[in-house]
């Protein structure tokens, strides 16, 4: 995964983050305007542009808490989600 690709996708979804401002890895993304609906759009964009698939169990508030937590999650994402029984 290219870091700047990840950053540019993420920044597109942070409507309260000025274009030239720093994005600290540990800052809450909510602060920059990422709500749960936008998290879904962000997820789709990340999957499309980075060619990964995040398993459903990663769709949690923790995953989308900060840029760093999201970067970690995307880093561990596999190409296909594992089949599982609920």
């Amino acid at each position, binding site marked *: 995964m290219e870091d700047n690709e990840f950053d540019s996708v993420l920044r597109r979804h942070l409507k309260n983050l000025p274009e030239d401002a720093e994005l600290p890895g540990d800052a809450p993304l909510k602060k920059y305007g990422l709500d749960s609906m936008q998290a879904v*759009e962000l997820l*789709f964009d990340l*999957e*499309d542009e980075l*060619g990964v*698939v995040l398993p459903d169990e990663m769709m949690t508030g923790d995953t989308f808490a900060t840029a760093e937590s999201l970067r970690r999650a995307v880093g561990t994402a596999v*190409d*296909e*989600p594992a089949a599982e*029984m609920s």
Partner: protein
Amino acid sequence: MTATQAPPVARQGIGDRVAAVLPVLREHARRVDADATFPTAPLDALRHSGLMGLLVPTAHGGLGGGLDDLVRVAAELSGECLSTGMIWAMHCQQVAALAVHAGPELRADLLPRLAAGQVYVASVTSEKVKGGHLLSAHAPLRREGDRVHLERDAPIVTGGSNADGFLITMKDSDTAQPADVSLVYADRAQLTVRHAEGFSWDPMGMRGTHSGPLQLSGVVPESAIVGGAGGFREVALRTFVPVGHIAWASCWLGAARGALRAVLELVRSPAGRKQFDLDSDLLRARLARVRLDLDTTAALIAQVVRDTGLAPDPEAPDVQLRLNGLKVHAAERSFAVVDALVEVVGLRHGYLRDAPLPLERMFRDLRSASLNYANDRLLGANGALVLVDRGVGLAL
């Protein structure tokens, strides 16, 4: 608890047992449908899994599961193969009736064999003269000492060719009224089972539920009567009908959920993402409706499970309305879900018989749901009940 006496396999969780059989169902689903054959290998896997005894109390070697477990397992199995799911669920309906209403002698003999997966029980309730009307019977039992003779024409028995035992509705005696119905259990070995000549099985869907006419005759002990002489009405109201509707609805819901799972897998996959516009408002609205149909059906199942456990009067209008309504709603909405999903994924994924997604098969299978104990008849009954429940007793 009997866990200390049970072999290690009995301590396995229900979820693990289901997970072990699902691949077998998946592997055979397409063939079972194409050839319209009974799912013998999936049923063997279910026999070995212990799940044929899901509702058998642990004291008799079963898994001691409840209706919640029945719902979940039926839904999971049916997500892979609705024919197999239905065969299993209808077997469980028979087991529930036996576990609750059979006398001590029959329980001691039969429940351990059910738990061990040795006996697959088919249901014989339809009769030529009365069609599918459940609470009446015309063929009479004939008693001779403590033995009971039965002779029965059954126009349609799901899985009848493969069943190891039968639960049969019979008029209690020659002189009894048709409403005086006894439920009788017979092992296949106690019966002469004749298959009608020239019957062919080539239906639109549910092709694995190999169903056909049978003629049964034989002699069983008086203790084979389940729920006492003439006691079927009580068995039906307390157990047979509620468990049947819950089981069917769970199967249909499970198949529809399986269809949605498959579609989500496709549209969320990297390849699918190139074909489907997940930003489309139309796509999202359709998916939202589909999910809502699944959620409302699941909620109604849960309510009917509660009603069945709690209702002091199973004939109370509000309880009957929900019980009948569940069957109608699950049948309609599960089919509507698959129909909508065909629209979502289009011709290539939703209409071709050899598409990787099983939507075409599920569509044909679920078309049977409204006909299987006809929605029209249940709606007629519910229409009358609505009129007498002026307080409109909702489960609020």
